[in-house]
């Protein structure tokens, strides 16, 4: 067994050697531009891209014409959300998403909210300058808005009802197990809703969302459904027609492919339209300009093919390892909490809070094992994981969380080693923890007046 052990497969996965093998010719002699239509170099590249497109499509039960290659899932999320919003701006501008989504979705939504707010402020300033016959700036905007009751002004209302280029966004809470409440989702849909964006599986707690139910709901209500499926694809079956999803973000490097390449699935029947966010040569049927990253796309295709062929067997094996890790740790330590649903969960994910032990300290003491923590102690904000907080996990327990991500190349021997190491180090750190001592002495930690710093 070689150290260090990589058990952070939600962050990224190692490149499968078979994927690398498939890619190499396209980094060497087959370097052509897939858009070169008039010579053999271009044809070869185009054929390779076509094959990869089929491989990726097949993994999710789609047609190859529905796959748009991107630089990764962050771009795919941006393209899906901004693209739909712009294309359907005359229909509405309301988006519904979850508080536990990836930042690529949440921050895209926040930008769209900001754009809408800025546009409305401009309209208010314009209207108020007509009404008040004076210069309106951010400084007197609030005062004049109140004075002239701008929200009730018919002219302003008429202007504001036009597309702003931004969006209104509803961020839904999740249940304690991390799952969406379908009734709340249904209730949040309005006649202005154009898009629902819900992830397949969460990157921190591995919670799998009820995608088929959401897809059915969205189809019934005439709302498009985008799914960031980065963490689940290749680990659990995902079929676009069975799930009734309209747009799906996929990343290659989470399924043993290379970094820097991903895809957006865009449904053709019934047809979903998106406006591009990158302009240029009109590649990818105009939805994503830019010379294709042929070698990476070939690797992505190979990774998708392997994932499809090996999914059932591999997921069963990884699940067994995860359970071995979970039961091994839990049978030897007390005061542990599993974060996220155990039932609806990625097979390789384990997110545990080790009460009274700080996550970053634990990571440091198991430095031969690569994992992550919900304790964002290294970030400037010092705020623990927003995902755990959204699931109602107390801040101290969020600071105590560790995420294990088991993947294709982990072995049983590694799991046994990790169990022994974690149990040993948690005991050591608890011996060093004033909180553990107090808890053992029966002191209610909530009764103490702590000095926040």
């Amino acid at each position, binding site marked *: 067994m070689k150290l260090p052990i990589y058990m952070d497969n939600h962050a990224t996965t190692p490149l499968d050697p078979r994927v690398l093998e498939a890619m190499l010719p396209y980094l060497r002699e087959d370097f052509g531009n897939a858009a070169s239509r008039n010579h053999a170099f271009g044809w070869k590249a185009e054929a390779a891209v076509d094959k990869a497109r089929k491989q990726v499509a097949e993994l999710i039960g789609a047609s190859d014409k529905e796959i748009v290659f991107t630089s990764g899932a962050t771009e795919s999320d941006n393209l899906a959300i901004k693209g739909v919003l712009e294309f359907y701006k005359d229909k509405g501008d309301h988006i519904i998403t979850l508080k536990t989504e990836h930042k690529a979705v949440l921050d895209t939504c926040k930008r769209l909210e900001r754009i809408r707010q800025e546009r409305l402020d401009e309209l208010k300033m314009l209207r108020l300058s007509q009404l008040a016959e004076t210069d309106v700036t951010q400084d007197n905007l609030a005062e004049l808005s109140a004075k002239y009751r701008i929200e009730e002004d018919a002219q302003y209302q008429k202007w504001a009802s036009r597309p702003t280029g931004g969006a209104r966004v509803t961020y839904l809470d999740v249940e304690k197990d991390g799952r969406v409440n379908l009734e709340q989702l249904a209730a949040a849909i309005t006649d202005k809703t154009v898009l629902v964006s819900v992830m397949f599986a969460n990157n921190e707690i591995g919670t799998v969302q009820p995608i088929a139910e959401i897809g059915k709901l969205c189809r019934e209500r005439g709302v498009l459904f985008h799914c960031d499926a980065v963490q689940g694809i290749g680990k659990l079956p995902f079929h676009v027609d069975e799930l009734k999803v309209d747009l799906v973000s996929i990343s290659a490097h989470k399924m043993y492919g290379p970094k820097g390449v991903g895809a957006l699935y865009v449904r053709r029947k019934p047809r979903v339209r998106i406006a591009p966010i990158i302009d240029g040569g009109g590649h990818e049927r105009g939805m994503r300009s830019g010379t294709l990253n042929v070698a990476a796309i070939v690797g992505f295709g190979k990774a998708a093919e392997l994932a499809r062929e090996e999914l059932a067997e591999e997921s069963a094996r990884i699940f067994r390892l995860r359970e071995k890790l979970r039961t091994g740790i839990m049978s030897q330590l007390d005061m542990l909490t599993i974060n996220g649903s155990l039932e609806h969960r990625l097979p390789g994910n384990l997110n545990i809070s080790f009460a009274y032990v700080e996550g970053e*300290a634990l990571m440091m003491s198991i430095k031969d094992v690569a994992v992550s923590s919900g304790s964002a102690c290294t970030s400037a904000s010092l705020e623990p994981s927003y995902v755990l907080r959204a699931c109602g996990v107390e801040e101290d327990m969020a*600071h105590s969380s560790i995420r294990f991500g088991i993947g294709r190349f982990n072995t049983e021997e590694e799991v046994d080693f990790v169990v022994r190491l974690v149990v040993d180090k948690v005991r050591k750190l608890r011996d060093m923890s004033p909180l553990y001592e107090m808890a053992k002495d029966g002191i209610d930690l909530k009764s103490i007046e702590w000095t926040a710093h």
Partner: protein
Amino acid sequence: MAYSDKVIEHYENPRNVGTLDKNDPNVGTGLVGAPACGDVMRLQLKITDEGIIEDAKFKTFGCGSAIASSSLVTEWVKGKTVDQAMTISNKEVAKELSLPPVKIHCSVLAEDAIKAAIEDFKKKRQARQGKQSAS
């Protein structure tokens, strides 16, 4: 983020981990930080009637830098007078451990812990003296 060698050294071989009897009149206990912030430090000092710190123990819930900061100050305060210990500043701790800016709060906590422990000791002594003069 990479830790400095000194942080790693203290983290892997923490000095003076443990508990002193908090009911001992010569023991001052400082408990600072908050679980919600991810750092709680408990520093206990055994102080002679002459005001010399003869023993120091800590327990810390926190990241590696917080544990290293606590370990370091237990070494520093031993043998010092209360007045000398009061002059230990977070800047010295941060410098000794080469803490990056995001970890400065760990050294602040260590300084606060010393002050809180000494204050606790002084309160106990005052209470004792009050009792003695009353009797």
